[in-house]
């Protein structure tokens, strides 16, 4: 291969500045020493410059476009040129705010779920409201002549407590009314209410849960009253006992009621 052929093959790489070392040196030397190859290189160089100039020439006003672009980039914009939105998660301030909001939301939900003040347990509230909804019972009055509600017949006496009435009611949990039966007793500590839910309400969200006698009991103390809840063994629904009595006594009474459900 002659020097001119070799030069022709590497001409564009040579003009593009992509030859290195000995190759670059050889091309430079040949271009200088060979008038025809030198002329071709000059024509190529002129052509490439002419093409670049033609392509660059279309960009009149480029400086303005770039200046505007830089101005917009430096401004605290929330939308990209062309209308596409800047993803909020790419903005550090919003990302931090979103993280704080997410943590706060989880904390609030946890507080609500575990009944941490100021949140109250929905079921607890519902039971209290149901218990408070009873009209005051006459002290030690004669028990109801027909205390059975459907097939549920509450015991006429629970220890020192006497049955006053038994009736159908509703327990409203999370705004959802659940059919229930309620029996009210009176005794030395005042009224004692037993509530049997007909529908499933799940486990109560009380703060305390105790295992006793191989069973689970949920206990809460609210407004001077103790509340004990348990799952009925037959119906798998929730039963609750509310009274202004010591917890231990209430647990013993709850066990009596629970056994009577069989």
């Amino acid at each position, binding site marked *: 291969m002659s020097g001119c052929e070799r030069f022709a093959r590497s001409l564009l790489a040579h003009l593009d500045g992509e030859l290195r070392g000995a190759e670059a040196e050889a091309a430079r030397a040949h271009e200088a020493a060979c008038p025809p190859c030198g002329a071709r290189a000059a024509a190529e160089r002129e*052509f490439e410059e002419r*093409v670049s100039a033609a*392509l660059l020439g*279309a960009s009149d006003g*480029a400086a303005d*476009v770039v200046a505007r*672009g*830089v101005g917009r*980039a430096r401004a605290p914009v929330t939308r990209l040129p062309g209308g596409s939105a800047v993803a909020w998660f790419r903005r550090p301030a919003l990302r931090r705010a979103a993280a704080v909001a997410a943590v706060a939301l989880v904390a609030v939900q946890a507080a609500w779920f575990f009944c941490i003040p100021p949140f109250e347990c929905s079921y607890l509230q519902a039971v209290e409201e149901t218990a408070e909804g009873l009209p005051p019972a006459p002290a030690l009055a004669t028990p109801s002549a027909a205390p059975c509600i459907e097939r549920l017949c509450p015991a006429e006496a629970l220890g020192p407590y006497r049955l006053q009435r038994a009736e159908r009611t509703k327990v409203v949990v999370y705004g959802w009314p659940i059919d229930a039966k309620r029996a009210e007793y009176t005794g030395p500590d005042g009224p004692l209410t037993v509530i049997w839910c007909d529908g499933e309400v799940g486990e109560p969200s009380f703060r305390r849960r105790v295992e006793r006698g191989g069973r689970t009991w949920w206990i809460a103390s609210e407004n001077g009253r103790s509340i004990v809840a348990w799952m009925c063994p037959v119906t798998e629904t929730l039963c609750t006992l509310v009274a202004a009595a010591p917890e231990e006594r209430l647990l013993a009474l709850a066990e009596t009621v629970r056994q009577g459900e069989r």
Partner: protein
Amino acid sequence: MQDPGSAEAEPPDTAPGDASPGPLRADEFEQLTADIARPLHATALRLTRNRADADDLVQETLFRAFRSLATFRRGTKFRAWMFRILHNVFINRIRHEQLAPAATDPADIDPADAAHPVPDIRALGELPALADRHFDERVKAAVDALPENFRAPLVLFSVGDLSYQEIADTLGIPIGTVMSRLHRARKQLRNELLGYAREQRIGADDDGGRA
């Protein structure tokens, strides 16, 4: 075009290195982008083939570059960094519009390329004057007619003034593919312009005959 003799020298648009530690400042960014305004916009124009889209592309590129200043390393070539962002934004846009070019083109790898040098440009005859709008329009039309795979390397080289390696980095392709695509783009461009030159000569002969 790069001066062959200065290929190893530090390019003038290299961001200041040791003198100013830390990320580029906004005023430095503004100065460096002003220096490459024309090639940046011209490249956007040839990639999009539409002035409004090119303006948008440049502005989005500047926006993204400014927001990514922390990732730019001083001492590296600012121009290459900007063109890489420009091309990425462009590719994202055409992907978004589902107009993306095929990732691999069998025509890319042509072992015969090296054995077939591009046509001798002297066949064009005397080049038209710099202000010849017809020639300029023909060049632009010929470049616009190139397939995307060939157009991008040619524009990044001729307008962006990037080296083969920088084009390879920008496009995310091997340097051999850059050389092959550039070679074929030039060949196609020259063939187009040779056709133009022939038309011009025929036109001139006809005018001469009538006279």
